[in-house]
């Protein structure tokens, strides 16, 4: 049987900007899961998963090999890994979590971009109402929030680098919005 081609929502929309001032580039395909359950279950899973599922609000933990657990709510975490890790993560959860909990594959529900550069904060602040100053939104913070008319997940990976996810059908809007906001910094 012919192999189905995977078309990620951001992929076709392309990058914007250039390294330094502002750059928006699509993230590669990722394995993504929403894990929901008790803090105890999260604790157990973190040990096996590699990245701790933070019980402290708004915190994301990442491993060197590309896994990350983002706190989204007191019983909700976004687990991310390289696309090739998909089955492995499923296996880890099945093997470690004993408490009742919920794991749902959302690898295709969400789609993501990486935003970086010295002007990344004002570009995001064109639509994101949060204080993105690193004192208020430190490296390692993750949260759901909004970008103009779209709900997003925002995770600060480095001082001037953000990982942003949204629902796949919102990708063209997010892309268009960011392009418009970045225009004055790229002109």
């Amino acid at each position, binding site marked *: 049987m012919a192999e189905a081609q995977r078309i990620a929502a951001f992929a076709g929309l392309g990058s914007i900007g250039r390294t330094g001032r502002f750059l928006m580039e699509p993230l590669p395909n990722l394995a993504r899961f929403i894990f929901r359950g008790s803090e105890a279950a999260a604790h157990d899973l973190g040990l096996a998963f590699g990245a701790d599922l933070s019980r402290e609000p708004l915190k994301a933990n990442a491993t060197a090999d590309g896994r990350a657990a983002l706190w989204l709510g007191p019983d909700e975490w976004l687990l991310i890994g390289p696309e090739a890790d998909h089955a492995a993560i499923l296996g880890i959860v099945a093997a470690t979590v004993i408490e009742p909990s919920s794991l*749902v594959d959302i690898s*295709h529900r969400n789609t993501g971009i990486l935003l970086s550069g010295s002007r990344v904060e004002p570009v995001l602040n*064109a639509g994101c109402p949060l204080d993105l100053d690193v004192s208020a939104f430190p490296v390692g913070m993750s949260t759901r929030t909004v970008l103009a008319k779209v709900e997003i997940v925002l995770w600060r990976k480095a001082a001037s680098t953000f990982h942003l996810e949204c*629902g796949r059908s919102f990708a063209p809007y997010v892309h268009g*919005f960011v392009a418009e906001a970045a225009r004055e910094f790229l002109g």
Partner: protein
Amino acid sequence: MTAPFRTASGGRIKRAETLSFSFDGRPLEGHPGDTLASALLANGIHLVGRSFKYHRPRGILTAGSEEPNALVTIARDAGRTTPNLRATEVEIYSGLKASSQNRWPSLSFDVGGINDLFAPIFASGFYYKTFMWPKSFWRSVYEPQIRAAAGFGMAPEKPDPDRYQQRYAHCDVMVVGAGPAGLAAALAAMESGARVIIVDEGAEFGGSLLTDTSARIDGKTGWHWAADIIMSLGLSDKVTCLTRTSAFGYYADNMIGLSERITDHLEVPPAHAPRERLWQVRAKHVVLATGALERPLVFPGNDRPGVMLAEAARTYLNRYGVKVGSRVAVATATDSAYQAAIDLKAAGVEIAVLVDVRPEGGALVELAREAGIRVELGASVCDTVGRLRISSLAIGRIGADGRATRFETIACDGLLVSGGWTPTVHLYSQSRGKLRFDAASQTFLPGVGAQAQISAGAANGTFGLESVLNEGYAAGEAAARAAGKKTFGAKTFSAEATDAAPAGTLGALPTDRDPSRVRAFVDFQHDVTAKDLKLALREGFRSIEHMKRYTTTGMATDQGKTSNLNALAIAAKELGKDIPSVGLTTFRMPYTPVSFGILAGVARGDMFEPVRQTAAHASALALGAVFEDVGAWKRAWYFPKAGETMHQAVNREVTAVRQTVGLFDASTLGKIEVVGPDAAEFMHRLYTNPFLKLEVGRCRYGILTKDDGFVFDDGVVGRIAADRFHVTTTTGGAARVLSHFEDYRQTEWPDLKVWLTSTSEQWATFAIQGPKARDIIAPFVEGIDISAAAMPHMSVRGGTFLGVPARLFRMSFTGEFGFEVNVPADYGRAVWDALYPAVIAAGGAAYGTEAMHVLRAEKGYIIVGQETDGTVTPDDAGLAWAIGKAKADFVGKRGMLRADLVAPGRKQLVGLETVDGTTVLEEGAQITPVAVPAKRSHAIGHVTSSYQSPTVGRSIALALLENGRARHGERLYVPMPNGAIAVVVTDPVFYDKEGKRLDG
């Protein structure tokens, strides 16, 4: 050619460079740094506009955003035309085209000026007393006339091509106003390491320092001092300095709205720059250093071109190098106008006279006299003369009786006036802070604040440069401390300046004329005179709010910045009350007008709201699909082949499903994964249907009601595992159903171990429907036995499809045998592209939402939102079978039993067939028992869905009809404009009543 009223030197304009611009087509010249007002004045032009009601000639009153008179239209092109801009704020650039407004045929000869002659009739509120006879004339004659005469500028003819941006920002200290107080505050806050935003609506920072060339601060000139502070603020990466930025609104929890003008002052705006930007700033603490506004004086003929605020004239001289006349008179109630007179005199302007209404004058009388200025104390202006510009004034001595006795008429070409200073407390008041009236200074000042803010400088009633600076610095420091920053103690400045004392006069000046006959203007733009205000009071409009609305005082584009206090004082005097007990009208946002564009931001076209497209959208588009908007989604509506009408396409699509096979993109349906040991119990409590016993691998059509018992949403639910359900919702209902679920999970039944995750976008969903459905999918399916025996109707299986993980449902919303396959969305396009050729090869077709609607209507299946409208119970919709009668409770159970929801005569779902068999009824059409109903007769039902059915070969309709289920076979009527259509009530299922086709 230099402009005749330009000084030889001085000012902040760039004299070396000359710009040409035009006013009403007349070419003129100015310099960078000029406003339109200063450039016009430099050319000797005072007449700039016409007033609203009487079309009186008007000049330039102020040098700032409070300008009531000098409104102009600036046009770049047909789309970039902006009406009602203040000449005092417009910065000129080479090629600027300005024109005056509200006049015809020309500014100097305006036919509308005839209104001025009828002024006694056009008193306040006259229109409420007339234009009533004959009745029909209001709409046909009077109103059109009034509308044509009213309004100022014209909206552009073409859409505005410019772009507008928005930005959220946060800071520790927000400083509004960059005069001495604001600059000192920003400095203090910066020194504490706070994040600071400082804004000023002017083209440059400095505020009153730009006007006051006499000021010395710490040994520097005011200009130098300001320049130094501005530079150090600019160098700090924690300080954001925004010029041309008006703080227009002070909202809850210290959010300030800013409107930044970015390109309007540029000859060639850069392509990448937005025209304007809205800032929504959340500040930990706010310093309001918004200064004070000078008040005009109220006397007969006070509105002629050439009459100007004294400090404005001083600004034109010192900041712009412009003399506002050759021989000007000054009328004042406060000291600051003396300084203006002295400065003008020093620049070579003849000062015809300075009249001071105060019998003793003030601190600067001697200085003025020494400068050779004739000062008349205890005198008033009785009248002025001059049609398009003032030519003389009559002055009078103020007697003990409060009336003036005219003693001289003096020629002049300008008259500078000053009634005193009003602290700019607009934003403070918007923040819901309480104002207090200070009797000594006769001003309203900030009292008990409601938010984390502090006022400083003239805005706080503090005058005297040194005090203003020290207060500003202290305010910035206090604000930084309140925001959690460490500060280093007060700094003090030493400063000298010729300062304003706050006191002045309020209300109308004494005159020798009958105040009930003369027109002394209070609100210039709206032509409200002192006697209008008194008339309103006489007629019983005694609350200041009534007076405002009856006379429209303070309701013009300047919102009464220069007039409200005078109006209030006149009212208070007339009512015999003190000013605070009469009270102010409400200060509202915006402080100065803000463009619609800035508030709308980037929201236009595709950025207005996200355009949500399914994974297979591009493929549908390539097939020529026509799309419809459903919520934010684009859904393929139908797939016309070349030359096909919509109707033909839909018929073909429906027929394909019934006879062979159809392919439908159902991806927009909402999906929720319900997981946990209590998942079944949770579902059981939410849905009207029973769910505990649904077997793994089976699905069920479920109805959701809210606690009120009306149908809320529906969808097919599959049990994937004992503790896992795949729930589908309507497209539009996805978000609200999830919210409804979360609500009950978190707040009603927190003990249940169940979790919800939206999967709407995880899955691309395709329906393959029709007799050949199994043949079509078979080649793609792995790991699932799709035989009838192994996979019965209403079952769900996991496996792979085209090699990717899939959930395959055997179900049908068409009445045909069929499947719905769910694949991870990024594979959606590949799966569609694989299925489509197979469907075509089998003689089938892709079908859109319209065909889907026809197919389900032929089967009598409802669509939530079409057959239901929030007033329909499951029983009304013929879904009583889906109510778990044995269930102890479910959401909506009790609500459904309320008296009216079980009363006889409710509307029930039925089918309708037209008697002629061909007419397609209009959806929404009403149903009556008789063919020719009387006016106001009762409709017994309405058509919810209606189509031409290719399957049954006739038109069919669904309807909600009173007692409908008992009426099968009855003949009823659908009245239409050109006659009623006879219909017969039927069962809602038009096709395959036994449901045999589901078995394939």
